[in-house]
């Protein structure tokens, strides 16, 4: 097992899948010779050639539209949109076609493609480089929305995503990209899309989060244990859509208390869906109202203020203690 950053583990997943399956193609802006602006596709072009690692013209819709065509033909394109902030320019291709072709052709065609794109803030970037808009995709029927929280699960999830028969939007946290390293096994590892995981076991409170926010959430949990003697259960969603509510519903039934954390704006965000699932399936177990800790309903500010926008460990603690105080 080698220690890897998320950048390296995603590269490993791509490389191994391309090795194994000649249908797998990588395309996007600067993904070839330059190895991607975050170097995620570094070295792939040397291994697999310019025909499978495609430097495309600068056109998001073109990249995704072309991927759809390739997928329909039977290839397994993995396209990179340089920043999720630019993927609105290809959103219509996802919504109009990637998500619908299986249904429209009544199963004759399907679109086994993956759209990889970095999301979330915390890296002092310019406008359009820091937002979290997973809700758009999670709200779109016909596609899957995946957000890993670390090098190891990123590799496993991407491998599953590439093999998935339906289109998968794969959000990669810039903040985590190189933040820390984990042991990532050389041998293949997958994680079923549509299944969440328990990141920490406890009995007093349930924290539900994913992606970038997992680290502050885990940090808050250990502080709660040290300072308040509170044992928290933490659910890492990993897949936003289709949402696996089994674990967090069970958890809330045990703890009676929950806080949902995400960086995306609160209104109509994933948290809203999570909370209503709890209402539908665990209302009578609740001991206190559920709290949400999310980004504010504004455009994420430029970086001088972004740290006040992005939910902090302190904000998570405050919410958790509020919920526990009732």
């Amino acid at each position, binding site marked *: 097992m*080698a*220690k890897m*950053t998320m950048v390296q583990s995603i590269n490993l997943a791509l490389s191994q899948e391309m090795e194994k399956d000649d249908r797998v193609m990588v395309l996007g802006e600067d993904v070839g010779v330059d190895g991607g*602006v*975050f*170097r995620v596709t570094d070295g792939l072009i040397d291994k697999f050639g310019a025909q499978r690692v495609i430097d495309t013209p600068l056109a998001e819709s073109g990249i995704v539209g072309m991927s759809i065509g390739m997928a329909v033909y039977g290839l397994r394109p993995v396209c990179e949109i340089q*920043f999720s902030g630019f993927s609105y320019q290809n959103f219509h291709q996802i919504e109009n076609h990637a998500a619908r072709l299986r249904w429209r052709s009544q199963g004759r065609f399907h679109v086994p493609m993956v759209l990889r794109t970095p999301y979330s803030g915390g*890296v*002092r*970037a*310019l406008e359009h*480089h*820091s937002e979290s808009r997973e809700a758009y995709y999670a709200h779109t029927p016909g596609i899957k929305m995946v957000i890993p929280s670390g090098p190891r699960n990123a590799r496993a999830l991407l491998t599953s995503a590439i093999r998935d028969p339906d289109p998968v939007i794969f959000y990669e946290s*810039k*903040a985590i*990209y*190189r*933040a*820390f*390293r984990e042991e990532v096994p050389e041998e293949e590892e997958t994680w079923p899309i549509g299944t969440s995981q328990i990141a920490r076991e406890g009995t007093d409170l349930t924290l539900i989060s994913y992606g970038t926010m997992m680290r502050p959430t885990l940090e808050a949990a250990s502080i709660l244990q040290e300072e308040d003697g509170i044992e928290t259960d933490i659910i890492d969603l990993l897949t936003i859509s289709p949402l696996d509510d089994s674990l967090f519903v069970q958890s809330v039934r045990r703890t009676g208390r929950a806080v949902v954390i995400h960086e995306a704006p609160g209104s109509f965000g994933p948290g809203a869906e999570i909370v209503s699932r709890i209402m539908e399936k665990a209302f009578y177990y609740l001991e206190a109202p559920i709290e949400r800790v999310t980004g504010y309903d504004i455009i994420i500010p430029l970086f001088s203020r972004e740290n006040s926008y992005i939910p902090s460990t302190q904000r998570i603690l405050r919410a958790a203690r509020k919920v526990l105080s009732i």
Partner: protein
Amino acid sequence: MVMGELTQETEVLVIGGGPGGYAAAFRAADLGMDVTLVDIAERPGGVCLFRGCIPSKTFLHLSELIHDAAHAESLGIRFGAPEIDLEAIRTWKGKVVDKLANGLVNLSDHRGIQRTRGRAVFESPNSVRLHQSEIGHIKFQYAVLATGSHPIPFAGVKFKKDGRIVNSTGALRLNDVPDSLLIVGGGYVGLELGTVYAALGSRVSVVELGDRLLPGVDIDLVKPLHRRLEGLFESITLNSRVSGLKENDSGVEVTIADQIDNAVQTYDRVLIAIGRQPNTKDLGLENTGVKTDERGFVVVDEQQRTTAKKIFAVGDVIGGMMLAHKATHEGKVAAEVIAGKPSAFDVRAIPAVVYTDPQIAYCGLTEEQAQKENRRIDVNRFPWKASGRALTMDAPEGLTKMIIDPETERILGVGIVGRDAEGIISEGVLAVEMGALAGDVALSIHPHPTLSETEGEAAEIFLGTATHILPKKKS
């Protein structure tokens, strides 16, 4: 990275990929720590591998061949005049360097070390900001500073690539063989490169400020080399200062001032080799609490710990003998201390080797030091003209000397001048480190005929049991 600043976290951050840096990184990784190695270069190796020891030794190997071939004539073998293909020489040097550099890449990658390119500048006692890098910041628990040193520039001279005035880095590019070359500084760097260029056909001159070559090395070791170089070089000027350098298309106009007057000479090239200074500027040390001395060297304790608890420093950047093997040893110490081991830089004999012909190698106490500390010592010289092996190699000018404590009979230092001194100094290092007595070396059998015998005999001289030299009357 085109956009934003990614932050990376690590247990141990090593800044600088030279022998000190990579040794620290490797050891730390072997001790199970999460290590990130930052260097501006793509591959580890540092000055030693890319612009120092290794390239200069590849060239020195050639100059030796050339010298031997020429010398062979007097021993009855005639080679033609050497034809020199600079392109081929540079390629060969490149191959050697590549092989070693790639080896280091493998060694660090297999140890799971995170190699990151960039220039690190401290922004706090536990984080650096990276320039020219994929990554914006690195947060660390411990840092090892191994940024090394660079040649001291000559006042008012800019080193241009392909300029006529160069430093060691420029000289090692070996762009061409100048007709005449002036070397400013009579230290080992100047003399080694001088030897190379002289062998390749340049007329080499040396100007040294001091009253002798290789300041700091015992004079009796320097003499034979000096004699040899006088033959090899155009001129060796001591007690003189280069007071002015004017570069023009035809050459460099050099003003050389000795006590009496100024002489102006023109040379094709001038090599500035007046020493090295630490790379401690623009490192953001002011944000860390790391103190440097008046000459800019980082101050450390014997565990390589700087005045900032979590930051360690090794190699040239902390001064002392600016030698790769010293840096390596210090690097390991730093890694072990970080890992909680009771390690310390506690050595008594850092060997130094000058790869001229003849070579000079020494370790431990020198005669000069002893005089300064006016310590009572007993110096025992074994001249190589009494060594069978030396004569078979036609290297009679050599000398091996052993500096011994007359009371305890303990070996305190060893000095050698002569062919392959590099190969036999290690016995001296071991003796000094082990606190060996003259008898320990004298009574150990040395194979005959070898140059190593000269060490055994030097020890025997002290005991009055030497075979190939008359016993000296003990005072």
